[in-house]
């Protein structure tokens, strides 16, 4: 029956891992963006993914808009939600401590979840694939066109962000805000705008993740937390604030999960991935790409 | 009499590509004030970090009371009787001034986690003792009236005094002061000099890193000048002041 044998299985797991990992990577990058401008972890990041997915379902499946139009509207919509979140809950905080802001983001995530439940109901929503649903074969392993879309979009987004943060003044200004607000303001950087921009961008990237994954995994209002946690794991293991790290760690996480599930035990597959992540952290306390030096120079 | 308490032998520390300390030899005599001066980035703070074990040397060795130090953590060096202050004053901002100094009594008290949590503080003799000892140090540096303020709200000069009081609470044999007068005005610097003098009288050996030359020249018994991690001069304050190398590298015309 199956001819490819060992190698084709292996390839199959790799495809599966890439597809999972790409989403983790995108979520992780979302974390990084906000982290880079504020130093905080936005626990509502997973909720952006959910909003993206659900909005896209409504636009394409209920309102039958063409994919590209729906894509743009969805991303804009979620970006506006991100901006709203920042304006209403992060910006007004006068004396922000990181811990307090993090709890605020937890509260926001609960609120978004509650709203999503009211607007979209509790059931899973499914959506057409971007292109055909017919798999094709590579060395005996099958791959969905949607998986290629996911990987392609990931690569595109990563390149854009690396360029943005390391080579544009706005990107660097955003990092500066994260490191030392007062000093950033004294160089004329408008910290409030930077923070708002970072929320918009990270909401946008979350929306993209939601849009591209929904055809494969379906979407419901409660998905955010888990996606958020996995993405957080990837962001940290990759080295907080490092886009490339997020991608590597995200994909690593996905691939380990797939290989662990495939070769060892599905009962423990998530645990194995996490274990490896922990070991990575213990060996490199600032993540794979995080500079030990740089992180020692940062406060919490 | 001229007892050597600390000896740095061929000490070396490299950070990535930067050689911060390079083949440094230095001896410190008991009950003296030895100053290290040198341009910014010469490696003075690094030397202190090496002595206190918070970083490990790339080469060479440090001998304290004739024994080679193996400390690879700051707390081990502290246990051997080496106390220090930091270039950027590091008080515990959320604790009161008195509590800060009480932390300094850590090594002079012993109750562990279990004993601490079983007996309430007002039944513990040790706790009372810690407090009286801390009060003594507080008065010594003259911060009595600030005892109950959070340390973070003190002006910088007082924070430096507090750091010293905290270090003294350890009853150290050797005290390393990293720029204790930076950020103090001339008068306060004078007070600091006087304080260091009193510390010396308590039979505590002091090592001082400082850019305020008057202070250094006033109180030091010996001055070592480092540049690029190496010693370029050593001697009494008067000798060093006139050394042309020192003037060129550090003091200026």
């Amino acid at each position, binding site marked *: 029956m199956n001819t490819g044998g060992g190698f084709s299985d292996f390839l199959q797991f790799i495809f599966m891992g890439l597809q999972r990992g790409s989403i983790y990577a995108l979520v992780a990058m979302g974390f990084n963006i906000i982290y880079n401008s504020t130093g905080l972890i936005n626990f509502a990041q997973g909720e952006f993914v959910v909003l993206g997915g659900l909005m896209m379902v409504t636009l394409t499946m209920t309102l039958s808009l063409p994919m590209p139009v729906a894509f743009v509207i969805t991303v804009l919509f979620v970006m506006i939600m991100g901006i709203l979140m920042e304006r209403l809950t992060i910006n007004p905080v006068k004396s922000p401590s990181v811990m307090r802001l993090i709890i605020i983001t937890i509260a926001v995530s609960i609120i978004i979840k509650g709203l999503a439940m009211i607007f979209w109901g509790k059931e899973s929503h499914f959506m057409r694939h971007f292109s055909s649903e017919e798999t094709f074969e590579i060395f005996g392993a099958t791959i969905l066109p949607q998986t290629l879309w996911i990987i392609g979009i990931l690569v595109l987004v990563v390149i854009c962000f690396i360029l943005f943060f390391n080579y544009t003044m706005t990107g660097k*200004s955003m990092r500066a805000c994260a490191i030392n607000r007062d000093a950033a303001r*004294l*160089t004329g950087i408008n910290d409030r705008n930077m923070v708002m921009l970072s929320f918009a961008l990270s909401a946008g990237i979350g929306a993209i993740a939601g849009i591209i994954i929904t055809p494969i995994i379906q979407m419901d209002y409660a998905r955010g937390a888990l996606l958020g946690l996995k993405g957080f794991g990837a962001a940290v293991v990759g080295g907080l604030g490092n886009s490339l790290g997020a991608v590597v760690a995200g994909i690593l996480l996905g691939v380990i999960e797939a290989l662990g599930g495939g070769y060892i035990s599905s009962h423990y597959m998530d645990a194995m991935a996490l274990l490896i992540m922990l070991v990575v952290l213990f060996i490199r306390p600032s993540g794979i790409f995080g500079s030990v030096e740089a992180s020692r120079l940062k406060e919490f | 009499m001229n007892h050597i308490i600390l000896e740095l032998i061929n000490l070396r520390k490299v950070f990535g590509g930067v050689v911060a300390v390079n083949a440094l030899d230095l001896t410190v005599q008991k009950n003296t004030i030895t100053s290290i001066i040198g341009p*910014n980035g010469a490696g003075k703070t690094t030397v202190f970090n090496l002595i206190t074990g918070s970083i490990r040397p790339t080469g060479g060795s440090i001998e304290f009371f004739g024994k080679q130090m193996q400390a690879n953590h700051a707390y081990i060096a502290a246990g051997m009787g080496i106390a220090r202050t930091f270039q950027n004053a590091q008080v515990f901002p959320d604790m009161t001034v008195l509590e800060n100094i009480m932390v300094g009594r850590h090594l002079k008290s012993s109750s562990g986690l279990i004993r601490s949590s079983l007996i309430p503080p007002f039944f513990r003799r040790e706790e009372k003792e810690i407090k009286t000892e801390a009060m003594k140090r507080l008065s010594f540096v003259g911060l009595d009236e600030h005892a109950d303020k959070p340390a973070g709200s003190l002006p910088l000069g007082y924070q430096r005094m507090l750091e010293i009081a905290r270090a003294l609470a350890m009853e150290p044999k050797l005290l390393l002061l990293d720029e204790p007068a930076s950020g103090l*005005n001339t*008068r306060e610097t004078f007070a600091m000099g006087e304080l260091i003098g009193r510390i010396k009288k308590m039979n505590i050996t002091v090592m001082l890193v400082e850019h305020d030359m*008057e202070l250094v020249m006033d109180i030091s018994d010996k001055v070592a000048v480092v540049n690029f991690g190496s010693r370029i001069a050593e001697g009494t304050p008067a000798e060093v002041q006139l050394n042309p190398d020192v003037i060129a590298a550090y003091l200026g015309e």
Partner: protein
Amino acid sequence: MLRLVNVNSYYGLVHVLKNVSLHVDKGETVTLIGANGAGKTTTLRSISGLHSVKEGKIEFEGNDITGLRAEKLVRLGIAQVPEGRQIFRPMTVFENLELGGNLIFKMHGKKQMKAGIDEMFDLFPILKERQEQYAGTLSGGEQQMLAIAMALMCRPRLLLLDEPSMGLAPLIVKEIFKTISRLKEDSDLTVLLVEQNANAALKIADRGYVMETGKIILEEEANALMKNQEVKRAYLGKDQREIWEK
């Protein structure tokens, strides 16, 4: 150029600035001296918009700037070198300078910014050597130079300096004071200088204010202040301290 009228500031419930009034004229170098905790830093932070003013008024070049945010004020031409070497520690020296120049970049483009950075490298050659190193690993003095360089990159008309000499080697202190005087002459920079090293500060200053527990208690020409017995006793130390400050 700059005028503070009855400014009051608080930290929580603590009244730190009590009716502070002072002024700095164009092209002038004014120094603010005072004991530890007198409120000098708070005064500067109030001017630069980092600390909010409860009562009173701040004017810059005739415009009311009370309550404006720091980043706005930088655009208006006020730059501050804050106390304690506020730099972007996990970024490289070069990136720090770029960020300092982000306003030039926005207004005049990349070339101008690069030129600005080169100027700074001429001013502080050590920074050039260390340009790829993380700013947080610089020595204290190097960090202070970087902080000054970053402020200068904003091309300010009014420079607020908070203890620029802190922790610097005598040679560098001299350099920095020289630089300040030079900047003042060359580019018509107005400077408000807070210093513990009162002697050195008064030497390059035109005028000085003395501050005590949140109040301005004295205003005089720098020369006069240096001779004032009270000031001498309180801030200039026991005797003459001329040996190391030429």
